């Protein structure tokens, strides 16, 4: 239980509401069309879609609300959980856009807060909250997919610096990012999980280059990132040497529940409505009897999963451990989402087969293709099933 009393919270809510009303720019009070363009991503070469986008970020940053849940010494808002909830609710009430979208906040921050030294926290977290640096993530490598710990990118200790060589893949927005947080091999002799470290690398350093990856759905934010004799200061090591796997596992569990997309389904138009619109009714029943049952089954599966997430979160509030259940969320949510997009294609008929413009989103066929990665990225469905088998069911390994 947080310590804030109900009265305090009430006051906080009133103040927050008034402040947002006064400070959220009028011009942003409409739906976002292109998330990637219209939201501020931060960075050394900042891009603001409109002057009001900048104004909104600046006001929120000043207030400490760019990252309301981080401590104030790192530029955060220092809000309690209950206050964070109030802020979220009040922002949602007014339809406020996030002031900034940043992997620094969602992915690097938690690692630094837990494993970084004070210098690193002061420097990097403050940069992130101020929107000054765009971070990207360098975990995967071409040879190592699910076998993340099989990574080969090496960081050799050269006395005063590390010399990094190797290649990363699936680095989102590496071509826009200023810095990358990486897993690198620092001890090639050790068992594979033990020789890995967590390193921060400047993308402008000599020897770093990137190449965008085109997906089956079209252009993508993903890149390959190459390190060719890149010198990295030793102070850029996070945590202890060869402790990288612990940090990575911590972040992966964190990421998994995000990719699971838990809760996203709530706002959506029911599939039955789409079905009725696209296929039509015949004597009160969907005109395609097979699709009718597929849609009904999907809705039942989807609703039961939504309720399961709700229940498990309720249980967590009462103190029960979530544990490896994030693997269940990740697995089931991504499989549901793939099925949904296949169904949307079936409902969409001939028109759904049109290939539309690249990079716009919202086109059925491209979206369907893109969803195929849901069950691959952030740990494949097979890996999630393995985790459930071992960590939840306690089935024996080899």
């Amino acid at each position, binding site marked *: 239980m947080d310590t804030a009393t109900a009265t305090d919270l009430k006051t906080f809510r009133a103040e927050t509401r008034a402040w947002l009303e006064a400070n959220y720019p009028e011009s942003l009070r409409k739906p976002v069309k292109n998330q990637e363009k219209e939201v501020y991503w931060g960075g050394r070469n900042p891009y603001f879609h409109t002057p009001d986008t900048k104004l909104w970020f600046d006001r929120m940053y000043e207030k400490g609300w760019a990252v309301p849940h981080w401590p104030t010494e790192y530029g955060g808002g220092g809000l309690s959980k209950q206050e964070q909830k109030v802020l979220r609710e009040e922002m949602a009430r007014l339809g406020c856009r996030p002031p900034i979208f940043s992997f620094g906040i969602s992915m690097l921050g938690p690692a630094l807060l837990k494993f970084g030294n004070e210098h690193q926290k002061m420097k990097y977290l403050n940069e992130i909250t101020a929107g000054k640096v765009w971070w990207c993530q360098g975990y995967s490598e071409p040879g190592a997919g699910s076998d993340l710990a099989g990574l080969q990118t090496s960081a050799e200790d050269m006395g005063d610096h590390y010399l990094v060589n190797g290649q990363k893949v699936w680095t989102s927005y590496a071509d826009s990012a200023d810095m990358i947080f990486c897993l690198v091999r620092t001890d090639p002799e050790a068992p594979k999980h033990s020789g890995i470290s967590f390193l921060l690398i400047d993308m402008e350093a000599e020897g770093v280059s990137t190449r965008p990856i085109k997906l089956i759905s079209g252009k993508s934010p993903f890149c390959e990132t190459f390190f060719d004799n890149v010198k990295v200061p030793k102070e850029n090591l996070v945590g202890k040497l060869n402790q990288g796997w612990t940090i990575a596992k911590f972040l992966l569990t964190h990421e998994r529940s995000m990719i699971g997309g838990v809760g996203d389904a709530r706002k959506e138009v*029911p599939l*039955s409505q789409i*079905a*009725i619109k696209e296929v039509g*009714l015949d004597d*009160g*029943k*969907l005109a395609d009897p097979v699709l*009718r*049952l597929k*849609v*009904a*089954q999907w*809705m*039942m*599966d989807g*609703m*039961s*999963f939504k*309720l*399961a997430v*709700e*229940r*498990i979160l*309720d*249980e967590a*509030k*009462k103190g029960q451990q979530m544990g490896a*259940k994030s693997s*269940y969320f990740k*697995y*089931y949510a991504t499989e549901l989402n793939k099925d949904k997009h296949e169904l949307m294609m079936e409902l969409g008929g001939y028109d759904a087969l049109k290939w539309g413009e690249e990079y716009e989103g919202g086109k059925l066929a491209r979206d369907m293709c893109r969803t195929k990665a849901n069950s691959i990225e952030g740990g494949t469905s*097979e890996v*999630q*099933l*393995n985790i*459930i*088998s071992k960590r*939840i*069911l*306690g*089935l*024996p*390994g*080899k």
Partner: protein
Amino acid sequence: MALVLNEEQQMLKTSAKEFLAENAPVEALRKLRDSKDPKGYDPALWSQMTELGFAGIAIPEEYGGMGFGYTGLGQVLEETGRTLTASPLISSVLLSATLINLAGNEHQKAALLPAIADGNLLVSVANEESNAHKPLAAETRFRKSSKGYSITGTKKFVLEGGTANKFIVSAKKNSKSGLTLFVVDAGAKGVKIDQTPMMDSRNIVTVTFKSVKAAATDILGGEGKGAAPLEKALDIARIGLSAEMLGSMMEAYDRTIAYLKERQQFGVPIGVFQGLQHRAADMYCEIENCKSLVIKSLQAIDSDSKGLAVYASMTKAKISQELKRVTNEAIQMYGGIGMTDDEEIGFFMKRARVAQRTFGDSNYHLDRFATLNGF
């Protein structure tokens, strides 16, 4: 409402679990079956259960019950699913008492509910007539004269019908009129009961009513007005039965996982094989989904949700699908041992097949779910 049990419900569940594990393990069902007792349940056990108040959980306090609601009753049912305990809970308490409470007048409720709550009166709904679930399609007819009513027709799949003291019989005046519900004594003249053994060893019978007399005071809910309360009572019963099925599903699953850890083949426990692991893990996910459906639907009864019918169909459909899958996978994963009558796992499959079909199977409810959602 948070999808968790309150303390009262949690206590009820725990005490039911302990009581049933002690007094009615699966072995008890085997003995009951092997004794070929046509009652299909153990009266001594039933009287212990009623002493613990199980029969009155969902019956309002004013009618001699505990007034704990259906979420509470669901916990007891779930535990009876784990032990496959045969009892009149489903027929008399879950369905009949609910129907009486929904449709009965003050006098009827006062007369019948306390007796059900203390376990001495067993009531069973005699409604189905065809081979599939068609809850409102009664061909049973009644005639009305100055002397009262006379009912004629044949009812199938009457749960615990062989031991019921009273039946709630649905009948129509003619093919166009609404459904009327009569409360009739099982011993009344013209009532004939035919029992054949069922695969779950319970007592499910065909009842023939031949010019059975009834009075106006025996009508529940008014002449021609039985359909609405019956449908609602059935929805509640679908959810309650789903709680029982959930218990069976979890128990069959838990036993299977334990077996995977224990059974050695090729020098290792068979649980190391990824082919089995992935199936087991996927079932784990669906069971989590099913748990949520059950608690949400039980709460929907207690909060008198407008979405009751949708919840009921969704829950009964999905639980039926998954229980079928889990019991089939259980036997496959047990292998030859699962095929033997000596091993208890087969009892879960047999009970599952009957429960799947009771109050509508997954086919019925998938279709109904679509219809209720307007497509």
